[in-house]
């Protein structure tokens, strides 16, 4: 029974990683940039949700939507201001900018409101416990998982069935050719950032409700781990990010369950390095050879 309980714990944690990883994987797929600031968009989303619930007294769903909307705009702003001028710069320059943006968001928020944590109110969602054969599953865990899956299905639909999704895939495949075919590359990239950031915002609100405590540096570690999840599933592949996130959550839970909870964060990075060395295309990726 303990093992099943641990799997449940892991899946709840993994769903949050998965939601953040979806944004990572989309952005990387289209502009080949590790958007370090993505974890901080997640944090901003969490704070927006917090203020929507406490100050504006809104319900969970409206807080979630407000947070997603705000993050979408925020993500586009980041892209337009910081990343767009660097489209043709080197990868290193882009990566350093991403680190800079991440530090700026974190410290900007600390400057505005201080570094102290904030606690989500306890009564946002009814809290029920389901006891199934001695395994207790909270209604929140189920909610997290279902929200993640619903969002992933919507995302999959958008990417594969809509015009903008087609444009995204085209830009991701070859942005020069896409441009020649009349696709507005700039708008497509902005749309990608908007969608990815909205997902991060949703993850932020869900995180707040599930883990209560939020603070300006909360996005750093989940952000990095979500990147690990994205790499694990094969970067640029949407179902891959989902599976990678869940898998990483479960791995972490099992490590803790074995009594090595202090090694948990280390394991995520060991997984990352092993994946990068032995399976750089990820679980779902196609192997690509670099051509000269």
């Amino acid at each position, binding site marked *: 029974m*303990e093992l099943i*309980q*641990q799997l449940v*714990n*892991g899946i*709840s*944690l993994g769903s949050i990683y998965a939601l953040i990883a979806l944004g990572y994987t989309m952005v990387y797929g289209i502009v080949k940039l590790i958007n370090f600031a993505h974890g901080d968009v997640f944090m901003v989303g969490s704070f927006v949700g917090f203020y929507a619930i406490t100050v504006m007294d809104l319900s969970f769903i409206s807080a979630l939507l407000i947070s997603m909307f705000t993050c979408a705009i925020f993500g586009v702003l980041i892209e337009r201001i910081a990343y767009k001028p660097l489209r043709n710069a080197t990868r290193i320059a882009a990566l350093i900018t991403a680190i800079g943006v991440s530090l700026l968001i974190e410290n900007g928020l*600390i400057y505005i409101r*201080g*570094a*102290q*944590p904030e*606690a989500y109110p*306890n009564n946002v969602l009814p*809290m029920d*416990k389901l*006891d199934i054969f001695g395994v*207790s599953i*909270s209604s929140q865990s189920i909610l997290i998982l279902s929200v993640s899956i619903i969002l992933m299905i919507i995302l999959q639909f958008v990417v594969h069935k809509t015009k903008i999704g087609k444009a995204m895939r085209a830009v991701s495949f070859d942005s020069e050719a896409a441009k020649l075919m009349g696709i507005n590359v700039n708008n497509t990239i902005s749309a990608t950032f908007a969608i990815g950031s909205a997902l991060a915002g949703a993850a932020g609100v869900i995180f707040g409700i599930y*883990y*209560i*405590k939020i603070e300006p540096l*909360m996005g750093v570690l989940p952000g990095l781990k979500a990147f690990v999840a994205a790499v694990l599933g094969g970067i640029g592949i949407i179902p891959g990010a989902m599976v990678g996130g869940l898998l990483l959550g479960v791995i*972490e*839970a*099992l490590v*803790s*369950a074995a*009594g090595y*909870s*202090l090694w948990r964060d280390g394991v995520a990075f060991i997984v990352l390095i092993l994946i990068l060395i032995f399976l750089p295309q990820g679980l779902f990726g196609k192997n690509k050879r670099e051509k000269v």
Partner: protein
Amino acid sequence: MKKKKLAGVFLSLSLVAGALAGCNGDSKTSSSGGGSSDSGDTIKIGANLELSGGTASFGQSAADGLKLAIDEINKEGINGKKLEIVKVDNKSDAAEATSGSIKLVSQDKVVAVVGSATSTNTLAQVQVAQDNKVPLLTPTATNPDITNKAGKLNDYVFRTCFIDPFQGTVAANFASDEIGAKTAAIYVDSASDYSKGLAAAFKEAFTAKGGKIVAEEAYVTKDTDFRSTLTRIKSAKPEFVFLPGYYEEVGLILKQAREDGIDLPFMGGDGWDSPKVVEIAGAEALKNTYITNHYSPEDEDAKIQDFVAAFKKEYNKTPDAFAALGYDTGYYLADAIKRSGDASPEKIRQALEEVKDLQLVSGTLNLDENHDPIKSATILEYVDGKQTFKTKINP
């Protein structure tokens, strides 16, 4: 050609360093002109506290208490002089605490440093105090090593609070005598000397009472997901959980534990003492939890009530134990400066050491030979999210 580059490197190095040396000179003259501590009518004391970062709630409380005490003392002055606090924020980081103390001692030339609220950050300053022969007085760092490491007394280091072993022992006695627990689990923050110190003392005292430790688990500061480890604790089936951590994680642990159906009594130390613990965990999850603490604002002692009233008037909130100890530290230091006569660091050290029966909010202060106060501890229970006074235990 290429060697010239090196010339350039070193030239620039010397230039910039020269500029640095130049500006050193400037600020040095200005600081020595600005006022040294022993002349003039102010006495500078340093405060190296956690004003931001992970344990900011403690540092800020202690700073509030300290400021209140100094303001009160300055109404009358000490030997015709006023006290001035020079604050340094160590950002809850040990390396920052060290360099902060170096700055206070050498740059601001303070006569004494009020050390950090947490043990780790105070330990980081001990050597600075010893090397520069400036007294370091910590309000709330409870780790024994601070004043006495491996049998060697740090003669410039003092504290206003009792030490970890005492707190851990009190908790263990409470668990076995009052709760009647035979088995206990310990869930410790392995990033904190404080937490490990309490856990070790609890374990020793609890086993001495015939109890059994059935699970020993650990987390690190800033973790957010404890469910997996809590599930492990649950399956070890203890009757009591000792959780000597700090408020941020404790709040989350309690909440997640209750959600996972762990209805056991939890107990911790003064690290829980922050309003945040109630905000994070919620009143419901705090049911059936206890802490050992330095004082209770509900204690009816007149000195305590006067302090609580003054603090409420100034800051519009109820003082926690960190504020009380910060306040006491102000009075302890002022008392020593008064008795020292010339307010030199060496005389203050001596006066701090010779303290006897000083009446403070957190009890009567006497030191043992290790510079550790002998004081009473209070046990509090959380009822409806509020600390209620349970008992007071004398050493």
